[in-house]
């Protein structure tokens, strides 16, 4: 053992130390690589909680499509033939490039069909900073058989709110996208306070291949409710959303979207865009109702049917409720059309109409049992009758309404299945 002199021992010990550190770091790096490989395989960011919010759309051939997240957090598409609604094809997984996807409550993936075989799927991609997101889209030119990679719809790329998107093709085949946007908020501590957020939008004339500039539809929207859109009888698109009037009055704003042919400019600095006021609950609250309105064009006359949630003072008491009213063609509420849905637990109502028939659908939950109810009118909303459509236990999505001409369907997803209810007649 003469070779074990002092220098050799020190050298060898140092070598072993370095080897040890190297081994340790390598082991940890391998562990991290395994983690990354798994997370890149498919997003598994919310393994426990199944996000049930699902979008639905009727294709020109009458086929019903749904888009949502499966229990592994992957975005899937399924369809069901017009003759056998509810008999779903095998789910097809869409390539969303590991985007985190919001699919809960009012923020659901969406799908829409246009002319020329165009179809689009959209979703909000939450970004790392809370309350921020990008509106993402996948487009198809073959009626939903194949889709592009996802892309961001808006031009603004700040890590701020671009969320709660809504999409609709107009009668000319232009794709309108709206979303809640906070680009107009000044930096914290700089300038006057900007109340709420804004509603921004853009238009694509080629089914999502290219987009016009972002434009501002309204200042001071509420920040976390869905936006309702509807085609009008004269080929335009109307929208209604929860809006902050004054300092903290949360009612609803209405606007007709600019035509695709008009020159829409980006934000005009300093110019506040105030929408038409469609509801007058006068709800004074600085909170997030997360309870957006529903809007349907009145196809037998001009104007619209609208449903919304709000709290209003009645005899000195705060009375919460989901209410219905008819709107004029320019979005003002019509006198003597206001009604309250006869269910104090009603939530996330939506509305459809065709000719004289108006269908309001909502969920009513006591925490364990949820009931799907419909309020049906055959006289353009003058009188209604309640009908129970279905019931389920445990977690479930809000009811999603879809329509193509006289065909009116309700899609309702729970943890076991996606049910379809035909409310056409």
């Amino acid at each position: 053992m003469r070779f074990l002199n002092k220098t050799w021992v020190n050298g060898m010990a140092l070598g072993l130390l370095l080897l040890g550190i190297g081994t340790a770091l390598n082991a940890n790096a391998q562990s991290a690589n395994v983690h990354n490989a798994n997370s890149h395989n498919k997003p598994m960011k919310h393994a426990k909680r199944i996000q049930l919010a699902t979008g639905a759309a009727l294709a020109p051939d009458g086929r019903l499509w749904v888009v949502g997240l499966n229990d592994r957090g992957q975005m899937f598409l399924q369809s069901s033939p017009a003759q056998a609604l509810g008999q779903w094809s095998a789910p097809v997984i869409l390539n969303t490039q590991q985007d985190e996807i919001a699919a809960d409550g009012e923020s659901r993936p969406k799908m829409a069909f246009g002319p020329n075989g165009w179809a689009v799927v959209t979703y909000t991609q939450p970004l790392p900073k809370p309350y921020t997101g990008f509106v993402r889209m996948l487009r198809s030119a073959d009626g939903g058989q194949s889709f592009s990679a996802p892309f961001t719809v808006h031009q603004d790329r700040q890590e701020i709110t671009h969320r709660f998107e809504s999409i609709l093709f107009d009668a000319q085949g232009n794709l309108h996208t709206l979303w809640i946007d906070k680009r107009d908020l000044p930096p914290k501590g700089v300038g006057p306070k900007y109340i709420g957020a804004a509603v921004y939008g853009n238009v694509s004339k080629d089914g999502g291949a290219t987009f016009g500039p972002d434009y501002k539809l309204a200042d001071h929207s509420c920040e976390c409710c869905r936006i309702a859109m509807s085609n009008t009888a004269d080929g335009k698109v109307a929208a209604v959303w929860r809006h902050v009037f004054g300092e903290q009055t949360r009612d609803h704003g209405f606007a007709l979207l600019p035509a695709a042919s008009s020159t829409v400019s980006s934000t005009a600095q300093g110019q506040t865009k105030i929408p038409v006021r469609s509801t007058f609950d006068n709800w004074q609250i600085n909170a997030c109702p997360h309870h957006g309105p529903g809007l349907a064009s009145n196809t037998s006359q001009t104007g619209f049917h609208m449903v919304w949630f709000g709290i209003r003072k009645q005899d000195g008491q705060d009375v919460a409720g989901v209410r219905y009213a008819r709107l004029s063609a320019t979005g003002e509420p019509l006198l003597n059309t206001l009604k309250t849905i006869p269910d104090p637990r009603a939530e996330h109502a939506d509305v459809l109409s065709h000719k004289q028939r108006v269908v309001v659908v909502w969920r009513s939950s006591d925490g364990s049992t949820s009931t799907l109810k419909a309020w049906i009118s055959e006289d353009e909303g003058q009188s209604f009758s309640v009908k129970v459509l279905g019931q389920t236990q445990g977690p479930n999505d809000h009811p999603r309404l879809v329509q193509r001409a006289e065909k009116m369907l309700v899609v309702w997803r729970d943890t076991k299945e996606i049910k379809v209810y035909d409310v056409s007649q």
Partner: protein
Amino acid sequence: MMFLNNLPRNMDTSQLKRILMFKRYLCFALLLPLFVVQNLKAQDHKHDPKHNTVNGQSVSARKLSSTETFHEKSWAQLLKSGPRPAAYLFTTTYCSTCPAAFDVLHHAVKEKGQAVPLMAVMMDASGAKALRHASHFKGITKMYAFDGFEPEIRQSVDPAWPNVTPYVVMIDAKGNAQKVIGPPSPEMLKRWLY
């Protein structure tokens, strides 16, 4: 290793010392990887919801490193045996008006100079996704996270609570609860803490 254990009998003291020093270094070098890996893994697990590192005392939101599970029976338990006075703010990941309401609670507590626990209950996310929001709640003592069906919580806390956040419950020293949607008024804060 055997050659180091079978030491020759005729070895001198300095040789023995060198061999023992070598063995010491070798053991250290072999144990080091285990120590480093365990330490790094422990850091990774800081976001494990099972590890609750705060209890009762207000800590900086940035230091909050875990959430505690909230379930449909939690509320009854907290009302029965939770801290008093205390406040609970029910929130969601999309509720951008919630931090401002929490600020109102925090400011009231600071002004009063009391160590009152301020809790946030995240209703639509758990784990790291919920914790991502903790830094927006200044003065937070603890974050609960619910991993189920939101109406279940609402039913257990207040069946008349519509789906609106923030929903704030302030419990005073005697156990009386005040509930409000949105930021509490100065009168409510006064009743809560004075």
